[in-house]
């Protein structure tokens, strides 16, 4: 997947305009794996509702920051959990890991671009 497919360009540009890329993207990238681990733990002990809340919040964050591909995958996971499915298939497959990795790389690149732009402007 290219960076353009991973991110929603219009939303990312808006984040640049608001000056939030350097502030929010690193924290999001660092927190994604931790959040998904928490979802796995909740599912492992049968706390479906807690897992659903975590996925819902993570999906909202991803969409708001322009991580559209990740938001789509999380929306599918949320839907599956809401329907009562365990969500194990989505976690078991490589798709989620791949999207997380690509999203993280794309967001880091945006942070670098924002930093370079800030330094250029002085």
């Amino acid at each position: 997947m290219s960076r353009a497919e991973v991110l929603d360009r219009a939303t990312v540009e808006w984040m640049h305009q608001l000056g939030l890329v350097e502030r929010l993207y690193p924290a999001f990238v660092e927190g994604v794996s931790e959040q998904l681990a928490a979802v796995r733990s909740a599912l492992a002990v049968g706390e479906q509702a807690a897992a659903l809340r975590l996925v819902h919040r993570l999906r909202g964050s991803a969409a708001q920051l322009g991580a559209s591909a990740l938001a789509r995958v999380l929306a599918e996971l949320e839907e599956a959990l809401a329907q009562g499915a365990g969500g194990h298939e989505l976690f078991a497959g490589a798709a989620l890991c791949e999207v997380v990795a690509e999203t993280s790389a794309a967001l880091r690149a945006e942070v670098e671009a924002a930093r370079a732009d800030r330094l250029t402007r002085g």
Partner: protein
Amino acid sequence: MAVRVLVADDDVFSASVLEALLVGAGHECVRVADGREAWAVLQSPEAPRIAFLDWMMPEVDGLELCRRIRERPGAEYVYVAILSARNKQRDITLGFQAGADDFITKPYHGDEVLARLRVAERVLRSTGPGHGLRRAIAEASASGGGDVIVRCQHRVGRIIFQGGRIAWAHVSDEPGSLVAILSGEPDISPYDIRGVIEECSVTGENFADVLVAWGLISQERLRAILRTWIRSKIATIAAFTAPEVIFSPEARAASGGLFFELAEVVPPELLQAAPVAASGLRGAPGGPAVPKLGEALTQRIRVSLDRAIAIDGARSAAIFDLRGGQCLDVRGGWLDLDLVRSKLRLASLSDLWDDLEDIMISTRRHIYLLRPYSKDPPCSIVLAVDRATPLGMARRALAECAGA
């Protein structure tokens, strides 16, 4: 205008984006991360009147919080928008059923959120406590005199009107003595003021005349001090939370002796004036939708009003549609819409309307002339002039404008 907005969302990223958007647009954002904190903020005396509540958040979710807000008896109205990544029709319906005024889906779009915030401001302006105060001020200024009384729990504010102008304003738990008002004047001692008050009580004179006559202060300086004082009191009264507002039409002699035009001391948002339109057609605030008019009539209205407002002594001129009472266009500033509408409603019901030359309404400050303007649609032209304006001349000039 900057507003305070409560943003309650446990999603730190979405909340940060919303906060940056609001602050960047000049607003103030009060941010909390769960429903319980949000409820606590909304109970505080200076609670924001606009709340953006995430649906799914810890402790108390957005819908439950919205229900609680709506169940508070006598509380000031809070405009609630539910924030959610849930965007199905069923979700949105549930939001409105819980009492929400709006439903904003994530991810946010900057322009859309700010446009929705403007809607919130508009709704609060038209339904909020300022609405009651605005009406009472309009009523008081059109009367011979009386008190606008505003109560908020133990606090009572009073704005005293006389002859369409403001003579005094007072807040019950704040100082209001002449000593307090003139405390910043180094040349006037409390001893001087006691003497002035004694003189007033013996002679019946007002304190302004005595202060000036005794050479303690110039009339201009006293007027400036009182204007600032009254303006600050009215601003305090306007900020009362969930007040009860009444107008008590009981004229009485004010002891101050100085009077202020409304525009000098009342915040503009509390003046119930007609919209000032340089050109084009506008609806009056709160009035029904403006009917569509032909280009020829639209142009004729513009010409007529441009001529009417140029009449000597004219304060405002407007044209009303008699069917729904809409103000089609207006020139000038102040216009007592309620007064004009009530008279036009009566006049249009009369069999004599078609034969009328004009109707005159005399208030303490203005004379209104109402005259038939067109039959299809049935419209009337209204001219407000100062009381000193020669009426014969104004009536002739208005007749010419109506025929323009």
